[in-house]
């Protein structure tokens, strides 16, 4: 649940940031959220990937549907992609990968000065 909440926080913050700032504001959002909230390794990446990626994917998809792919189909051809759906996917993917790495970076920075929580040990 925490994980899903975090994705929603990243997506929500990114959405608000994009109202005022250029695209790279999503990088900052994914980074900050993972710096402030604890997550581990691959999950950190995934939170940024899904938070930003899904936001971009959903938004692009909504525009695509609302405009009958009038422009996305043409831009897809320009990029030699076969359809507007792939254009939507690529948009989500680019947002996702960037968001993912930003989130991972935030999480790793957080963890530099923290001891790893002691594992429930059999040897204590």
């Amino acid at each position, binding site marked *: 649940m925490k994980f899903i909440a975090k994705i929603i926080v990243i997506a929500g913050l990114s959405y608000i940031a*994009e109202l005022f700032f*250029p*695209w790279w504001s999503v*990088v900052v959002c994914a980074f900050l959220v993972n710096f402030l909230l604890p997550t581990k390794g691959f999950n950190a990446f995934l939170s940024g990937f899904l938070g930003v990626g899904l936001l971009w994917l959903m938004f692009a998809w909504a*525009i695509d549907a609302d405009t009958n792919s009038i422009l996305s189909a043409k831009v897809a*051809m320009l990029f030699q992609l076969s359809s507007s759906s792939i254009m939507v996917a690529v948009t989500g993917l680019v947002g996702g990968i960037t968001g993912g790495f930003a989130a991972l*970076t935030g999480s790793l920075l957080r963890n530099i000065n923290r001891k790893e929580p002691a594992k429930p040990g059999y040897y204590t």
Partner: protein
Amino acid sequence: MKIVGFVVSLIITLALTVALSVKIESIPPLGYFLDPFHGFWQNAESEDLYVDPLLPAQVRQPVTVLYDSLMIPHIFAQNETDLYWAQGYVQASHRLWQMEFVTHVAAGRVAEIVGERALEFDRRQRRKGLGFAAEHSLQVMQENETAKRITEAYSDGINAYIQSLSYEDYPIEYKLLNYQPEPWTPLKSALLLKYMADDLAGSEDDLESTNALKLFGKEELDRYFPVFLPNRDPIIPTDQRWDFKPTMLDTPTVTFEDSTFYTTTGEKPNPDNGSNNWAVSGARTRSGSPLLANDPHLGLNLPSIWYLVQLHAPEVNVFGATLPGAPGVIIGVNDSIAWGVTNAQRDVKDWYHIEFSNNTRDEYLFGDRMLKTQRRIEEIKVRGEETFYDTVIYTHYGPVMYDQTFPADSSIRAQRNYAMKWVAHDPSLETLTFYYLNRAQNYQEYVAALDYYMSPAQNFVFASATNDVAMWVQGAFPNKWKDQGRFLMDGSHPEQEWKNYIPKEHNAHVLNPERGFVSSANQVPVDTTYPYYVYNSSYEHFRNRRINTLLSGLRRATPQDMMDIQNDTYNQKAADVLGQMLDSLDLSQLTPEEKDRYDLLRGWNLKNTINQKAPTIFEVWWDTFYDQLWDEFAIDSISLNPPNYAATISLMKQYPDDPIFDSQRTTSVETMKDILQESFRAAGQKLDQWVEEQEEDYQWGDYKATSVQHMLQLAPFSVENVPVGGGRNIVSANSSRHGASWKMVVALGEEVQAWGVYPGGQSGNPGSPFYTNMLDTWAKGRYYPMKFFSDPEDAPSSVLVRQTFSPDSSNPE
């Protein structure tokens, strides 16, 4: 370890962010571009047109704009300044990128956007003196109260729109090429008109003719390149009497002897740039009031060349086609008159060989004196590279376009210096012609409006509700002695200089001719009785004759008749020559396939409709024959232009035994008959090969493959294989990349009615439903009724949206 992991991840993140924020080669910065909140996604528009219903603006009084179902704005302002402000704002909101790009093209500023590959193009534009010419025009615009007021109001409107934009609102081309719009200035409006002058009055064959003169001699040249053809049908009817005393010139004794061949001629405007226009007097129409029609033929481009608008303010109520970037209506109709234009070709650009005193090029010889040159340093910004500085020497003739540094390719570079003398370099106020035409109520006011019009020269057709029809061939035409400027001239001889212009009132014109109609289609303007020397390297000879034949046959003409003529695909060229071509074939030599093609041609109705094969056979045969015939003109190291189609046909009829028909590739002696036989066979092979490659049959529509292309030649933003009939030298002039860029038919009378269509749409945005929404209708030869609203308050239901600009109280400007 943890630090290493963090640093690696940080580097990847930063590298990704940077990589997605910069343009790499031709790929736009993908982060910005794909971002659905700001990137290209924001350029996609849904079916429902949305505009801000109420916008605070720098207008003095409220301005209402109604957008009709074609998204044509109908602008209602309460004063002229507001009217042109709103025209600028509205035009920019649909066509900003195109407006700016075209003026960059004119100014030679393309390398600034696309980099080094446009440098040679930019140098050429600047060396033509387009910027120099626009600056001249700007100067006189600023000295004229009206011109200054309207161009500044128009600029302010465009700038108000530009200032309202942030990245997400930019037209998609800015996002793709990764640059920003800059503020508009009246200079850009002047540049746009110079761009049109270059496109329409920038073509000549002087150096080619000089080469041809040396190769063939004067006698052959006059035979191959006649200005007046036997069955000519000039714009001004041949029964016209010239009731003025011409300003005559002494013809100096000049010999055009030249020992050099010239290779230095670069890209030229498309020879298919032309148009049709005509007006039928009320005596020959069903309604009893005149009909007027116009279809300018230009490159078939997207965003569309024209933009439709209605402009309404006290003293003016006009509807028609505008050029994005210039205030006012260029081709249109108001409550009392309608007018249209076709290009009035004439040799208005000449070349002078300049003899400099030494390598500094500070002085040049003129008669027995030395004149000083001026230098203009052109600063050409090149994206991603260092700025290129080009020094252009100016003489009193004009810029020395070709010299030791240009063209850059030394294999075609001139060894000597040629200065260009061109009408369009002179300051002029064409904007005022359109300003006054938009308001003209009668023939006198139309003629007065033309006083300001110099370049590019046009045939202005006119019709009024009071039943006048007229045609003026209007422009600044140098008064020349015979053959002056037909060849390269010697700049050191003062007698070879242009002395004066033909007085405007002596320009060829006709009012209410006997025959009951006026028409023009880029043909020779006058017959030999006209007292001034008239020359152009090529005049249209087919469309005009067909139009006049059709118009002569009408007794009770209707608007539908006008549309039918505009859509006429009858091939006059084939009518002139195909019979002779077929008759000369030796049928016994034909293969069965060739015989089939022969039969198709014999049975052809001479129409270039899309689903027939005969027009393809004819056109391919003709082109093959033409190339074989004029092989004497295909010499690699020498620039030459063969005679045009009309002159070729005239030669075939008058001199079928001319030695020019002998092929240069063989030792035997060929006659015209031999070449026709051989080219018919070769044409068949070309067609077979085409079928093999395309895997479809060669119906004319498929073979011609008309396309309407985006200005950046991006295929997805273009429309290919538009099924439309017609072709070169045909009234329906749609060839593969060229055609009727705007078609208008007007019925004058108590209430003015207009119909129109163009191959595109009002929006310049490839993501808008209004980008190409008129294209199908255009291709089918159909029209939209053009709506005039007399009052914004009784706006009919066909209005999509309504926008009001209200005076912004927070901004006293």
